[in-house]
C-alpha cells in the first residue's frame, strides 16, 4: 500500500480523499493556490504545498507543478479527484513516467473514452447500444444525407466536446447548415478540434449512469445506477439511487452494457458509464435492448459517488486506493445489492433569483445539518471566503433512508437545517424541486428544470409572510441587543449574551 499520496485537487473532494487516506494509514499532501491558502482542504492534510496563482491554469491545472510537488514531497501516488486534470490522459502518462502511481484508470482507457466519436465507434463494436447516428462525416452534403436518414430532430455535437459546448439541436433540415457552422466554430474555439458527429435527438430523456469498478486483475463489476436527470445547463443538481424509472430486467441489461463498455477499453479503478434513457421508447420495448443508449464514460470518480457508497455499502475512494496499489477487488456481481434509497443535493453558491449566477463572499455563518442518515461532504467552514476562481459547489448534502419517500422527506428536513449566511445559495430552489409532484413521481427528464422554470410552475417555496415577519423581528431584536450591550459596556460583572455580531471567528472587521 502507498505511504504518501498527493491530492491534485481542492475543496470537498480533496477532503473526502484525505479521509480515506487517513483511514488506510496513508499520509496526505495537499496542494493549494493563492486563494486557497487558508482553505479547509489544506488544514486536513499532513503536508501542504503552494503551487501558484489563484487562476486554475497556474495551479490545479498545471501538470508540471503538481508532479514537481509530488516528487519533492516524496509521494508514491497522485489522486486527481474530479474535474481539473482527472480525465487528462497526458497527465496520467506524465505521472507514470516519473514512476508515480496515477490513482485511476490507464492513460489508454482515458484517451479511448475522451473522444465522443472514437468512443462511440468502440461501443458499437462492443455491442453497447448507442444513439442512432454517424461519426466521421465531413461535408455538409454527407451530414444532410445523414440527417434525413436519422430523421429530425437531430443533434450535431463536437467529437472532442463536453459540457454542452459545440452542441446544437437541429429541428429541421433548413437549420442544419447554420448549426453545423456554429457548432464547428464553437468546437474549434473550445477544443481546437472541429470534428462533429450527428445523431438522433432524444428530447425527453432521463440521464441514468452506472458506476463501474474494476481491479488490475481483470475483475470488473457495476455498482448499480444513479439517476441524474435534475440538471440545469448540463450541470447536475440532484442525484439519487435507485432510479425511480428502472425496473428489472432493464437494470440488469443496462448494468451488463456498462460492464461491457468498460471492458472494451480495458478499464480498471472507478468509472461511470452514462446512458440516456428514452421513457417513450421504453414503454414500447419488449426486452429488445432499445430505449437506452450509451452517452459517454467518465474515467474518474464522480461528484455524486456518495449515493452509490451509501446504497451499496462500499467506500469507493478506499477501494480506488487499494486497487491502484494492486489489490484484488473481492466482490462479485452476485454479492452486490442495493439497500434503501440515497439522494444527493448539490448546494451551490448561486442565486436563483439572479439567473443562477454565482454569489461570492465570506461565510458569516455555515451550519450543516446533522442526524440519522445525513452525510455532508463539504469544503467550507464558517469564516471561509467563497471566491470566483473555482466551482460554486459549497457542499454535497446526502441522505440515506429505507425508501425513496422517506429519503425525500429526510432531505427536505435536512435542507431546512442548513444555514448559510454571506453568500446566496440554491437551497430554496432545491426545496422547490423536491416538493414538486413531477419529482415525487420520478418523471423528471434532463430538460425539466428549464421547461418548468419557463412555465413558472417551479418557484421558490412560497415565502410565508409570517416567517418573513419573524425574520424582520429577529433582525431588529438582534440589533437592539447590540445597543444594549454597548450601553452597558462598563458593567464588567454582567454576563454578555448579546455579542451577536462579534463572532469569535472574526466574521467581519
Amino acid at each position: 500500500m502507498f505511504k504518501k499520496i498527493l491530492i491534485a485537487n481542492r475543496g470537498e473532494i480533496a477532503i473526502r480523499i484525505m479521509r480515506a487516506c487517513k483511514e488506510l494509514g496513508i499520509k496526505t499532501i495537499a496542494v493549494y493556490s493563492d486563494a486557497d491558502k487558508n482553505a479547509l482542504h489544506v488544514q486536513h492534510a499532513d503536508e501542504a504545498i503552494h503551487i501558484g496563482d489563484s487562476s486554475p491554469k497556474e495551479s490545479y491545472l498545471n501538470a508540471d507543478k503538481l508532479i514537481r510537488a509530488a516528487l519533492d514531497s516524496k509521494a508514491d501516488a497522485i489522486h486527481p479527484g474530479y474535474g481539473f486534470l482527472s480525465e487528462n490522459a497526458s497527465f496520467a502518462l506524465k505521472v507514470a513516467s516519473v514512476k508515480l502511481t496515477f490513482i485511476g484508470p490507464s492513460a489508454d482507457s482515458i484517451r479511448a473514452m475522451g473522444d465522443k466519436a472514437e468512443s462511440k465507434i468502440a461501443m458499437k463494436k462492443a455491442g453497447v447500444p448507442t444513439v442512432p447516428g454517424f461519426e466521421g462525416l465531413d461535408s455538409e452534403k454527407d451530414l444532410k444525407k445523414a440527417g434525413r436518414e436519422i430523421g429530425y430532430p437531430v443533434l450535431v455535437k463536437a467529437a472532442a466536446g463536453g459540457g454542452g459546448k459545440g452542441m446544437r439541436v437541429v429541428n429541421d433540415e433548413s437549420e442544419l447548415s447554420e448549426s453545423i457552422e456554429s457548432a464547428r466554430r464553437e468546437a474549434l474555439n473550445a477544443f481546437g478540434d472541429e470534428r462533429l458527429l450527428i445523431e438522433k435527438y432524444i428530447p425527453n430523456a432521463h440521464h441514468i449512469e452506472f458506476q463501474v469498478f474494476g481491479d488490475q486483475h481483470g475483475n470488473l463489476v457495476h455498482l448499480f445506477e444513479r439517476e441524474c436527470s435534475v440538471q440545469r445547463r448540463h450541470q447536475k443538481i440532484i442525484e439519487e439511487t435507485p432510479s425511480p424509472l428502472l425496473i428489472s430486467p432493464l437494470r440488469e441489461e443496462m448494468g451488463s452494457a456498462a460492464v461491457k463498455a468498460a471492458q472494451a477499453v480495458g478499464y480498471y479503478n472507478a468509472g461511470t458509464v452514462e446512458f440516456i434513457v428514452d421513457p417513450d421508447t421504453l414503454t414500447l420495448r419488449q426486452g429488445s435492448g432499445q430505449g437506452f443508449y450509451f452517452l459517454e464514460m467518465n474515467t474518474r470518480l464522480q461528484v455524486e459517488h456518495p449515493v452509490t457508497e451509501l446504497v451499496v455499502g462500499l467506500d469507493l475512494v478506499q477501494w480506488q486506493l487499494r486497487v491502484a496499489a494492486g489489490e484484488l477487488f473481492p466482490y462479485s456481481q452476485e454479492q452486490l445489492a442495493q439497500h434503501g434509497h440515497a439522494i444527493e443535493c448539490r448546494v451551490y453558491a448561486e442565486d436563483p433569483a439572479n439567473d443562477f449566477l454565482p454569489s461570492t463572499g465570506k461565510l458569516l455563518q455555515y451550519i450543516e445539518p446533522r442526524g440519522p442518515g445525513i452525510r455532508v461532504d463539504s469544503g467550507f467552514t464558517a469564516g471561509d471566503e467563497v471566491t470566483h476562481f473555482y466551482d460554486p459547489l459549497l457542499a454535497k448534502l446526502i441522505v440515506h433512508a429505507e425508501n425513496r419517500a422517506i429519503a425525500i422527506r429526510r432531505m427536505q428536513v435536512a435542507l431546512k437545517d442548513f444555514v448559510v449566511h454571506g453568500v446566496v445559495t440554491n437551497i430554496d430552489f432545491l426545496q422547490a424541486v423536491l416538493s414538486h409532484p413531477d419529482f415525487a413521481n420520478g418523471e423528471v427528464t434532463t430538460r425539466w428544470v428549464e421547461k418548468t422554470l419557463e412555465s413558472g410552475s417551479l418557484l421558490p417555496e412560497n415565502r410565508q409572510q409570517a416567517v418573513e415577519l419573524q425574520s424582520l423581528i429577529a433582525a431588529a431584536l438582534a440589533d437592539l441587543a447590540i445597543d444594549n450591550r454597548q450601553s452597558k459596556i462598563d458593567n464588567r460583572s454582567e454576563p454578555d449574551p448579546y455579542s451577536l455580531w462579534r463572532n469569535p471567528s472574526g466574521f467581519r472587521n
Partner: protein
Amino acid sequence: MKLHFNDITLDISSNGKTFALTLDDKTIQAEILHAEIGKLDLLIDGQRVTAYVSSDNAKRWVTVNGQTFVLTKSSGARKGGHAHHAAGELTAPMPGQVRAVNVSEGDAVTKGQTLLVLEAMKMEIRVQALQNGLVKKLLVKQGQTVEREQMLIEIVDTLES
C-alpha cells in the same frame, strides 16, 4: 425607538423583558428567551422562533424555519425607491473577473455588441450594449476583479456626447 430594514420601519418599545414592535398599525409582542453568538431564541406572539442572524455592514442575514432573508438596515431617511442606473450605465451582474475588454473610451458601439466579458466560477458572461452609442466611461480593465452591481461602463447616445 425606530429601526429601518429594506423599506420597512419598525417602532420598538421595551417593557422590561418584552418588546412591543409596531409596523403598519400592527403591534407584535416579542421576548428574547435566549441569545448566543449568531442565534436568537425568541417568543413572538406566543410562538417559539429560532433565528440565525449575521451582520455584514448594513446587511442582515436572517434564517427562520429554513428560509434565509437578506435585509438592509438603513438610517431611516427613506430613499425614493432603488437608486436607478441610467439606461447606458452597465453594472456587473455577478462578482468575478474581467476577462476581456473589447472597447475603449470614445468608441462607437451598436446595440447587442459585446463590450466586456466577465468570468466567475467557470461561467462566462458577456456584457452587451443595450443601445447604440458611444463609450463615455470605461471603469474597469482586463484582469480586474469586480463586485456584483459594480459599474463597468457607461454608454451615451451619440447625440448627447
